[in-house]
């Protein structure tokens, strides 16, 4: 059945609701919970893992009558609330998460329901409250640290890199750090340079961290739950302009896989890898491309670290052409790493070099025209894909 996905209006075109043909949402809800033993992680546990071979399945279809419509911020809230109800050691800390309900309403109502200690309003000291969340996680809690804007977490870099990333290793596996660090990032609407940062690239090299980016209400809720249940420190990237995205999601509980990518649109001509807000720009561009007779395969990589090389590889083996569309900066961004991984692993299947559309290496300007020029626009995606498919590059 059709899943209606409303695309946020791009700044360069007039606002409008765009509907797409059903996206084959390709997920595998892996049951967590009792699967992994709680014993010390000093040696490799024998993991009862599901082979990812069943990749061709679609998720349970959501009919027009089943499920419920929800906005993305609310889906995040739903996931968080479910996890907090399920596990009393899950707690949130951050600025204005409690009484204010979160600056993007992701924690709205939670303080009233769970109390001020479980939804902790912190003073403005990112490095210290992130570290506090890490210390609490080391000693038995599962903390969700919110950066009011992801950019603020730059102040917490010491704790994120040295402690979240490293302590499991330097302690020889004695302490685990089940912390989720999340918040809105990305380029918004004229929010100015410091509130419009693309932090995926900054944290991606830190060993010991996992990073995921959500892009729809469905995957937002599923990834939130998965991140909280994970024993690893996970950074969950949300996008400031996607919070009001609406989608119908299942009523039944579901948890997504942190390490998997999402096949958004199957195709055979070209593989387009994207994540977060750019997914929607790619889908918008795809409308035009499809009208012109092209058949792009669109994959939302979701897992920024580690990359799902299976989904990505299978696609490349089919299409032999890759375009990465990201909001991250050109230099040292997710695209840069992804290109390297593709070249390393799938060189023999490529007809040409993997292409990448990234944002400019500039601090996001305030002026609307300059801001638009900073990030990739759908028109650029169309041009690039056509060039690639016409053999011009």
């Amino acid at each position, binding site marked *: 059945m059709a899943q209606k996905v409303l695309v946020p209006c791009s700044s360069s075109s007039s606002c409008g609701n765009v509907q797409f043909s059903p996206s084959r949402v390709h997920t595998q809800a892996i049951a967590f919970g009792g699967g992994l033993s709680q014993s010390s992680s000093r*040696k490799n546990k024998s993991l009862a893992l599901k082979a990812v071979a069943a990749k061709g399945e679609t998720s349970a279809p959501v009919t027009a009558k089943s499920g419920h419509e929800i906005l993305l911020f609310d889906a995040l809230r739903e996931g968080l609330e479910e996890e907090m109800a399920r596990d009393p050691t899950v707690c949130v800390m951050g600025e204005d998460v409690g009484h204010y309900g979160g600056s993007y309403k992701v924690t709205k109502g939670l303080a009233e329901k769970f109390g001020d200690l479980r939804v902790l309003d912190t003073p403005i000291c990112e490095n210290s*409250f992130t570290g*506090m969340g890490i210390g609490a996680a080391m000693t*038995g809690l599962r903390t969700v640290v919110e950066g009011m804007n992801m950019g603020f977490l730059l102040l917490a870099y010491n704790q994120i890199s*040295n402690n979240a990333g490293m302590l499991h290793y330097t*302690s*020889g596996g004695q302490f685990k750090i089940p912390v989720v660090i999340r918040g809105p990032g990305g380029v918004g609407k004229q929010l100015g340079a410091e509130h419009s940062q693309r932090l995926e690239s900054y944290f991606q090299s830190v060993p010991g961290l996992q990073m995921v980016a959500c892009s729809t209400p469905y995957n937002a809720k599923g990834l939130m739950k998965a991140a909280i249940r994970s024993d690893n420190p996970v950074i969950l990237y949300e996008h400031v302009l996607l919070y009001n995205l609406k989608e119908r999601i299942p009523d039944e509980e579901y948890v997504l896989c942190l390490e998997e990518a999402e096949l958004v649109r199957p195709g055979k001509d070209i593989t387009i890898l994207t994540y977060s807000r750019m997914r929607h720009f790619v889908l918008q561009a795809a409308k035009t491309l499809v009208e012109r007779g092209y058949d792009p395969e669109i994959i939302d990589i979701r897992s920024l670290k*580690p990359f799902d090389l*299976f989904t990505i590889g299978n696609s490349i083996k089919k299409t032999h052409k890759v375009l990465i569309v990201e909001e991250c900066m050109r230099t040292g961004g997710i695209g840069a790493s992804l290109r390297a991984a593709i070249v390393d692993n799938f060189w023999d299947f490529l007809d040409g070099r993997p292409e990448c559309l990234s944002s400019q290496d500039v601090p996001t300007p305030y002026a609307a025209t300059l801001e638009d020029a900073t990030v990739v626009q759908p028109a650029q995606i169309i041009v690039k894909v056509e060039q690639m498919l016409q053999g011009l590059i």
Partner: protein
Amino acid sequence: MAASSLASRAVASLSPSISTGASRDDAGSSSVVGFHKRSSAFTGRRVRISSGHGSSAAHGRRSCVVAATAAPVKESPPKIADALVTREEGLELYEDMILGRCFEDMCAQMYYRSKMFGFVHLYNGQEAVSTGFVKALKKDDYICSTYRDHVHALSKGVPARQVMSELFGKATGCCRGQGGSMHMFSKEHRLLGGFAFIGEGIPVATGAAFNTKYSREVLKDLSVDAVTLAFFGDGTCNNGQFFECLNMAALWKLPIVYVVENNLWAIGMDHFRATSVPEIWKKGEAFGMPGVHVDGMDVLKVREVAKEAIARARRGDGPTLVECETYRYRGHSLADPDELRKPEQKNKYAVRDPIAAFKKYLLENGLASEADLKAIEKKIDEIVEDAVEFADASPLPPRSQLLENVFADPRGFGIGPDGKYRCEDPAFTAGTAEV
């Protein structure tokens, strides 16, 4: 308030001259909050109370006149009716300090014999702080340290073998050889680290204290009453994380004690050149918690302050900031030539060696005999020798260990091109597959 009770307690000093009731200007005396009297300690002039004149002191009328003397006055020690520790406690404290000293001396030897590497920061001279505080804790309490963490680990109960092995980089180390000197951890003994960057352990300690409060108030588990100690130095007290955490701990009345080991030097940076207001204990008040100064060369004084601060935390009254005036006898690390510290300052603290002072106390108060103490020293010698032998004989970590502890959940390495999780590939975990 806790601060005043600490001030009003008359504490017997380990220094030979005692004046009960007189104002104490001796740098080696009580844990009184009225710091202004003690400013002399920081300007390098030493003021001692002499009770009596000349060397025939203790008999006859004692004068309570405060007189500045250039050198300590020798006198026979007074009888103390009530010792501050029992024999058992005394021997435990002594043994712990001897262990710390002996272990660190052995580290120096081993370092110069190329058995341990990198940055090694020794604790010689500061033993009273570790022993005084950590031995006042319960097993379930947490401690969090810095790069100068060997002795904290030993005081908390981490076996010397495991610490030495870790320093040698062997697989039997407390952190499997992955942490090294600056990253000692023990889940069993509740040692939360071992941190190389100053200040970054303080929030972690604050988080552990938060967990205690959470366990009691949210999870309703009143059996949890763990107190956390955060150890750090004078240099750290100019760092943002210090202040940020003092604020949060006071705000939420977290069960934590912030222990400043003020040894006056941050590598080559004199505390007075770095700090606008050098009295660190004063900064507690700015955040609404008691700030206490204690003679960190006197294990009994430290212990007394420790017990009170820990009890305060445990009953839910919130954090305390304790500044321990102490000194490190060696350089910042084994690579530090230690050229900036003047001999006068070093000598001033050398005569206040916490171990020598406590030994004297035990002997003079009949709590132990020379034979007892010698037996302890011999026992510790054997423990440390054994630790070295064990570490020497232990294997180096194999290559296959490289990736094992990067993630608690190794699925974090992701899904490989063949559709299987990377960690399912034996070659990957053996470290021979490409990352």
